[in-house]
Each structure stands twice: as C-alpha cells, then as structure tokens.
C-alpha cells in the first residue's frame, strides 16, 4: 500500500513539473520563404505580402532567394539549410520544375510543410499551391492583344528559356487564343536568358529578322522590360502593339508613353501573404479546404492605370519607399 501511494505521488509530481515547463512563451512558428530571386520589383512585392502575414500571425520569417532566376542549385542549397534549421514550413517558388523534387521530398519527410507560390514542381508533395493562373492570364494577354486591333497581327514572342513553367503555360494560353483568330498569326519567337539585357538583345534581333512584326508579347518581368526597351530604342513604339507582364517601374513608363499597350499585373502582395498564411495554418493543423489557389492577373492599360483599385495594385505603397 505504501509503495503504491509513493508511486502515485511521484507520478503527480512529475506531471506538475512537466506542466511548469510548458508555461511561459510558446515557440513561434518558423517559416522559410525561398523565391526565384529577391531584388526585382515583383519579388519585393511578394516579400511585403509575406511580411504582412508574418507580423499578423506572429511568425519568424526568413526570406531568401538566389541572385539569378536560373540558379536552382543555390535554391536547393537554401532548401537544405532550411531543413537543417528545422524550419516548420517552406514556402517555395521553384526555379526548376524537376531538379528540386528530391530536396523537397527530403524536407517533407522531416515533417516540414511545403507551400508553393508562383512556380511549382512536378510532384504531389506540396500541400498548398498558390499561383497566378498562368494559362488563363496567357489567354487574357491574347485577348488583350487581339482587342481593338485594326489590322492583321503579326506577332513575335519573347519568352524565357529554361524549365520554368509559368512562361510556357502563359505562352500556351496566348497561342490557343491566337490560333482561333483569323487575323492574327505568330511569326517568330526568341528564347532569351532571364535578364533584361539578354531580352533586349534578343528582341532587337527578332525585330531585325522579322521586320513585318507589328505585335510583340513578352511573358514576364525581365522579358517585358527588355522587349519594351528594345522597341523604344528602335523607335517602333507607335507601330508595334506590345503586351507584357508585371508592373516593373520601367514597364509602367513604357506603358505611359505608349510603347507598351497593356500589362498583365499579378497580385504579388496577395501571393506572398497567402503563401505564409497557408503555411501558418498547416503548422497549426488547421483544415484547409482550398489547396489550389489561383489568382487572376489584371490587365492594366492607360484607361485604368490610375483607378483606385488598380493604382493600389500597380503602385504598391512599399515600392515608393
């Protein structure tokens, strides 16, 4: 009897001590965001969205990315570091659809939650995917290109080489629209590296090669700026109708001066915010019923550039700091 009582007392004391150690501040969740790059307007806007969610949910946030949008090896290294740090979740925008699968599998096997923003990987592992509907925005771009066109469109495509899916899907959406239009056809295409200089050079070469081009489509920030700059340089701003993507400051200028006729702008702030919010919800075991979140790209042109809702999208407050 005495032994039994002593045993009970010991158990009770141990429970008490364990309870004591649970008191005090609880650990913050630790989320690592790894993007394709960190220094462009696009990714800065994404970062702002991430930070907004991080402060709202009181999360420890680390925002990282390689210097160039093709360096998937650095991205994999950053993912490895996140695994070693025992990050609770990784929010990833993948440079390469195939070369990051293994490292992500390793992260998932350690219990790290995976959320994809913007660019995904060829795998089922990520629990939530937040991206712009690339195919739909490519279609929108196609429709914008075609609308109000007074003459037959002879279109040149400037797209990025490499394994990123975004550009390819957008191109697919665009070409699907164009195929169904009689008065529009795609004349030529140039694949460039993911920097503005390469895009500018590539566009100049394309225009030289196909002087009959009267319309140009570019599918991301670099290519848009590069192509726009090239068109302006060549003095063809009035002749060529250009549709581009993203709201780089230079692209906005080109929009204002008529070189670029329309921009498909994504809600980068929302993408970053939703990425971190969903990662936080996964960590806390909250049930998420919408695991594929598609954001729409908004077509911005001179007509609506300074509308109240558009201006907030195109000119993020944080950007003008």
């Amino acid at each position, binding site marked *: 009897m005495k032994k039994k*009582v002593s045993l*009970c*007392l010991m158990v*009770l*004391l141990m*429970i*008490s001590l364990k*309870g*004591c150690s*649970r*008191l*005090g501040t*609880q650990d913050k969740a630790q989320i690592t965001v790894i993007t394709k790059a960190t220094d462009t307007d696009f990714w800065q806007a994404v970062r702002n*969205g991430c930070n*907004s969610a991080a*402060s*709202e*949910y*009181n999360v420890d946030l680390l925002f990282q990315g390689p210097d160039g949008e093709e360096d998937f090896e650095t991205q994999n290294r950053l993912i490895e570091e996140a695994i070693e740090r025992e990050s609770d979740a990784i929010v990833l925008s993948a440079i390469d659809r195939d070369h990051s699968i293994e490292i992500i599998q390793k992260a998932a096997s350690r219990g790290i939650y995976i959320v994809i923003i913007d660019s995904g990987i060829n795998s089922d592992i990520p629990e939530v995917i937040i991206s712009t509907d690339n195919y739909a925005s490519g279609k929108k771009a196609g429709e914008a290109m075609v609308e109000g066109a007074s003459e037959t469109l002879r279109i040149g495509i400037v797209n990025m080489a490499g394994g990123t899916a975004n550009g390819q899907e957008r191109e697919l959406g665009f070409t699907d629209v164009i195929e169904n239009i009689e008065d529009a056809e795609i004349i030529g295409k140039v694949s460039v590296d993911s920097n503005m200089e390469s895009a500018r050079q590539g566009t100049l070469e394309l225009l030289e090669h196909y002087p009959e081009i009267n319309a140009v489509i570019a599918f991301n920030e670099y290519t848009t700026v590069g192509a726009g700059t090239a068109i302006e340089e060549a003095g063809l701003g009035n002749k060529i109708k250009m549709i581009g993507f993203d709201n780089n*400051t230079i692209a*906005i*200028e080109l929009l*204002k001066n008529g070189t670029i006729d329309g921009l498909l702008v994504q*809600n980068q*702030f*929302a993408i970053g*915010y*939703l990425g971190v919010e969903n990662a936080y919800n996964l960590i806390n075991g909250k049930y998420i019923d919408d695991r594929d979140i598609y*954001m729409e790209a908004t077509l911005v042109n*001179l*007509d609506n*550039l*300074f509308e*109240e*809702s558009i*201006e*907030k*999208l195109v*000119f*993020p*407050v944080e950007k*003008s*700091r």
Partner: protein
Amino acid sequence: MKKNSISGFLTILISVMCIVLTATTTIMFTIVYRNSLHRTAIINSEQAVSQVTNTIEIYAQEMKNDLKMVEKEIQWVASPEELRDYLNHMVQINSGCVSVMIYDEEGNILEYGADEGYIMEKQTEDISFLPDLFSEAEYEISAPHVQNIFKESYPWVATIGNKIYLELYKKELYVAMDVEVLSILSYVDNVSIGQRGYCFVIDKYGNMVYHPQQQLIYSGIKNENMNLLANLEGETIAGDIIYSAHALEDGHWTVVGVSYMDELVTDKLKELWWLIIIELLLCIVISIITVKAFNRKISSPVQNLINAMKNFEQNMEEFRYRTEKGVYEMQILSESFEHMVKRLQELMEQVKREEILLRKTELKALQTQINPHFLYNTLDSIQWMCERNKADQAVKMVGALSRLFRISISKGKELITIADEIEHAKNYMLIQTFRYTNQFTYHFEAEEEVLHYFCNKITLQPIIENAIIHGINPAYEDGEILVTARQEKDYVVFTVSDNGMGMTEEQCRSILKHDTNDSHGIGIKNVNDRIKIYFGEEYGIQVESKMDVGTTITIKFPKVTEGNINI
C-alpha cells in the same frame, strides 16, 4: 480504510475541501482575470487608435497650415514668374510637399511648383485635381492616391486644396498641394495592437481610405465588416474581434483599430489553467500526506485502542497492554486504559484469593464442625461419666455438645448473632472444663445492647481454645479466662483475656500470620482473615501479651444489624 472510519471521513473531508477551495478560487480568479484582460484589450485598442488619430490629425494640421501659408503668400503675387518661383521655393524647402498646382476651373495647370528635375507630362487624367476638395468651406484632404503628374514619378500623396482669389489673374482659381503620405502610411502599417491587431482608416461614407493590406482588400481576399464600422464611434465587439473607432477632428475620416480578444485572453488563460492544475495536483499530494500523518497520530492509535479493548474483553486475565504513541490525548487515553487494565486484573486477583480463602475457611469450618479429635475426646468423657454414673454431668455434656454443633453449623450461614456466638463459646468452655477439670475458671461478661448484633461464627472458640492450650499453665490452678463483649462507639468489641504464660512479641505476631497445621481447628489467623474479608481491614484481631502475666486478645467488629447483612 473501513466505511465510516475516521480515516475515510477525513480523507473525503480534506479532498472535498481542497477541490471546493481550488474550484471556487479558480473560477473567481478566472472571471476577474478574464474581465480585466478584456478591459485591458479594449483599452489597448482605444489607446492605439487614439494615438493614430492624433498623429494623423497633426499631419493634417500641418498640411492645412502649409496651404494657408501658401495662400497668404500668393494672393498678392505680381507676376507668373514670381508665382512660379515662390511655388518652387515652397516645394523645395518643404520636404513633405511634392508639388503645388494652380488650376483653373477646367483643371488646366496655370502654374506649378515642384522639386528640381521634375518634368510635367501630358496625361489623360490628373487625379490630383479633385473638384470636391475645392468646394468645401473647410479644408478637406483627399484620400491617399498615386500622383501621376510627373514623368517617372508616382509617389503616394494626399491632396489638399482650396479656392483662392489671385490678384494676378483677377479671378478665383484653385490651389492644390500634394503632400507625400509615405511616412504616415508607414506609420499606420506599423501600428500593432496585441499580436495580430492593426489599424486602418475609412471615410464617413464607409469607403476605405487606407488599409495596411489594401492589395488584399481590393482583390477580395480579405474583407472588413464595413456595415458594422460605417458609423461607429467607440468600441464594439463582434465575436472575438474588438473594433475601436475614433473619428478625426474634422469628422471626414475615422480611424478603426482591430484587435483579437482570444489571442490576448486565451493564451494567458491557458497558462493560468496549467498553473491551476498543478496547484490542484499539489493539493492532492498534500492532502494525502496530511491524512497519512493524521492516521499515524490519531486514527491508528484509536483503532489500536479499540482492538486492545476487544482483546481485553475476550481474555481479561492474560491480557498485556503496551501504550500507544500519538497525540497527547491519545497517549493519556492509552495510559489510562493501561492503568484500568492493571487495576481490574489486580481486583480480579484479589477476588479470587478471597474466594479461595473463603472456600478454604468453609472447608475448615466444616472440618471443625465434625472435628474428630474433639468429638471423640468429648464422647470419651461422656462415656467415662456414664460409666461412673455421673448422669447429670453426662447430660450436661451431651447437651453442650449438641448445642455447640448446632450453632457451628448455623444452617450454613457465616454470620450469626453475638448472642449465639457467646452461647457457642459458653458451651465449648463447659465441655473443656469437664476435660481440663479445675485447671481454670471462666467468666463471661456481655453487654445486653450488643447481643442482637451479628458477627462471624466460630470467632471466640478458636481464641478460647488457644488460651486454654497455650495460655493456661497446668502447674498452677488459678488460671482464669475472661470473655467480654461490649460496644465501643461504632464497634462491637470482644476480649478474651487470660492470666497465663503469655507470649513473646514474636509469638504474638506469628499467631496472626500462620495457619495452624494441627487438626485442632481453624486457628486465630483464620478468624482474623474471615473478619477482614467480611467487614474490612480496620476490623479483626489484636494480640497483647506479657510473659508470665497473661494475654489479651481483642476482636473488633462493626455494628451489624440484620438489615445490613448481605451474605
């Protein structure tokens, strides 16, 4: 622990007390704490909103002051150059001011001031030209917006404007000043209330002026409860969200603070609950220890005492008791019990001894009653008398003998009247004088008053026998034995005195100590014992003697009437 035992009762009592105390303390404390946390949360919210409101008001006031200053200066300006210079100067020295425009009614810019290097460009719409601003009597500030007047420059500004009469153009024009709001918007962005709370600004029509997450609002990902907030002033609570609203002085805008009740309160309450559970567990531990201590000091000793009493009941004689340890009261109880047991055992022992003695005495008395020696000696004498034809003497002897034995038996009773006892003694003396002829004489002196009292039977005879056998010296013929019976205060006193050989002191003492071994009879000790058994220690026999003088034996009895006999 048996049902209804001290131990069981106490355990339940302490446990119930602990639980009730802990529960009530917890509930009370939780309620008070929760209320106080709610209050704190609301106050935090109010304070944050108040502070933001103040800051924005100060900012707005500065804008108004700046515009007033501009108005004052340019009213009387003499030439467009002077106007332009002044406006440029104004913008350059005032770092917050981005531009000042002079508009005509159609929104054409007549003159403007801006920082160096700013190039105006034609655009479709100048969103800094807001006619609404100019129509109010008071100064009104526009909602923050992007300025699109200058090339490659799209800062976020707020516009403040007014109608003004310029002497230069001799008509009423509009002056509008664009002030950068990045810093104030940053400030609002960084306001936090609790962990998750934040502020935003709405106008009096319920439109959003600024929200830290405005990209989410405008794309529909996030919503604020505008219905609730449209005309709010003060606090309101919807679910677990606290809204605090504070209108700006001029009433155009309202600052709304959002904070979450649960995060502030629930986390702290969770901590509290853990503390309470720990406290409860400790309480249980303490009550167990307390009860065990109580058991050791009180209940166990009590239980042991109960068991001892039961054992004692079953086996009174062999019982041995060891005192208990425990609280003071238990020790006293225990010791008292021990004393009681010992006393009882002593008494029982005493009763036994007295029983034995009485039985022995009865046995001896029975023996005396049919003492063979005495009987056949007397019968011898009687035979002798018959042979010698002394019929009178024989008759007397036979009579005396028969009366002697009748009184000896006394129907089995131990106590007889003093009258009967004296009769018994007299008959014995008579018989003995026939046997010890002329060796002694005897006298009886008994007071009338004592004759009806009672005494032990066969009291005098053994003493007289002793006097005859050991006292009287056959060599002398003047032996006398005197037997008296009288009353002395509350006593009845017999004396048997002789003038015989006497005894030493030691002999006196030994008479009362030793039973006689001979078959002559009971003996003086026996008489003494019987008296003491029946009546108590203060009564009985005393022996006084002087060698060669004589012996007096005194026997003391209480005055016993028939009423207070309880044989």
